[in-house]
């Protein structure tokens, strides 16, 4: 039995290890980049993505439709990123001196204060807005793909993205 993994790579659906390997080859690094954008820490992002792959591996038998594996993987990874951000929030609430690791990537690759502020404010958006913006503008997913990944309607994706853009426009000063 054959199945499509990511639109390009065909693997045997009953060969889980091969399929996971194909998913990894196609999506591991892009997902690490996506999560790095959201949490600001490369190594933390790697841990989150690896755990996402573990969840997909463990729940393989529940993903009957091969076309949905990448959506399931993205969901698992976004859940991981959300849990880490929630943990950061709780730590920040109860441990007044604790602060997240410094974002050295922003200092290295973003040239202006406005660009750095844009990434910082992106991370402060409410979760759904943050996820919609990252999936829309970084991964260039269609609204329907974002909706499937997040388990919400395409109309909600539009609403969250619109609100996020409004908020970012208000919070980040014009150049």
């Amino acid at each position, binding site marked *: 039995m054959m199945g499509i993994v990511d639109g390009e790579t065909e693997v045997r659906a009953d060969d889980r290890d091969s399929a996971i390997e194909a998913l990894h080859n196609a999506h591991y690094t892009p997902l690490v980049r996506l999560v790095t954008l959201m949490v600001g820490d*490369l190594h933390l992002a790697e841990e989150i993505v690896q755990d996402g792959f573990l969840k997909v591996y463990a729940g393989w038998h529940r993903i009957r439709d091969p076309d949905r594996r990448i959506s399931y993987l993205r969901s698992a990874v976004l859940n991981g990123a959300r849990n880490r951000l929630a943990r950061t929030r709780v730590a920040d609430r109860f441990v007044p001196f604790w602060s997240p690791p410094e974002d050295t990537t922003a200092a290295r690759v973003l040239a202006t204060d406005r660009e750095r502020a844009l990434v910082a404010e992106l991370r402060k958006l409410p979760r759904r807005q943050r996820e919609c913006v990252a999936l829309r503008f970084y991964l260039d997913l269609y609204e329907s793909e974002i909706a499937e990944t997040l388990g919400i309607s395409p109309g909600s994706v539009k609403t969250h993205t619109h609100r996020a853009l409004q908020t970012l426009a208000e919070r980040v000063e014009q150049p």
Partner: protein
Amino acid sequence: MKLEDELRQVSRRYADSVTAEDVGWDAVVARRARRQQRRAIGSVVTLAVVLVAGTTTWIATGDNAEIQAADRSIDLLPDRPPPLTGTLYGLHIGNARCNKPPRETPAGPTETSFCPLQGVAALTLSDRRLSRLSGSEQYSDVGVSGAGEIFVGGDFGSAVPLEGADGDEQATPLFSSSTIAVARDGQTAWIAPEDGDGESVLWVSGAGSEPRVVLRSPTPLAAPAFGPDGSIAVLEFSFQPSKYTGLTVVSPQGRVESFDVEFRMHDNQWGFGAAMSWSSSGILAVSAAMGVHSPAPRETLLLDPATGAALGRIDGYYGQAWSPDGTGLLLARSTEDRRGTELAIGYGPELKEIERIETIDGHFSPRVWLPPQ
């Protein structure tokens, strides 16, 4: 340049700076997955969380905090502290260090020196013993019924019993965590954002009954608290600016009353930062940060749930729990070296008397104080 194009450009420049050489993972996932699979029972995979139990030390300390001017005095409370008996429940974050080697980054080697391991803990006031009950980074809040049933909030979609909460993160995979409330009779309350129209919804569930919607709000709600008569109070929150703006109280009969409140406190956690509790003597205590940048000063505001009027302010404390008789407020704040928690008791006619009790290791945020069983 349009903001959309700018976002596209900046996010790509940022994220794509991570190259394939930066990520050091190849067959690790498969190996970990196989190992994990062997350990799994049925289809459930439980990721092990190793908890390091912190040792508890107790040190008596000095200064008192200040209660600032109040709109109306609290004249109901007796001029003596409540008996320090019973059990305090709350979240505890230990001072464990990460067991991770320094790692190479483009900016040089970095070391993660502090890992906030969090969990639910109980502090027995008679012998001042702190016990870790369960630990998970998923927990964002804890509540306890009058019968001692412990519930936790987090990524669960509702308030769930502590027993069995671990490993349940996939139950409602896309839910925002928030604070929860647990009534003496075991009813639980939580807040969920709704998709589409952006409403914030307050849910309540009785023991064994289906959850029901108690309140829908176009603005975000936060920090629910049950009153002694079964009423529920929630804070209203605004993202712009990021601060609390009001108080809404829903009676058991469903009557809704909203009050504008001049909060000094902002919220550096976008609606996650406040905790509220309602005393048996009829006073609300709200603890939150007062700035949008971390670390921010903390304060506890006392409110009259009947009018929304401010009754007093206590600076510097980030956690609180009312005594079972409602005559004292247990307060918590960080020690100067930031590795411990100072516990104090506020009492007296205007809650102006504050006596330091003890200092414990790690960060303990008290939420519920139950009398001796």
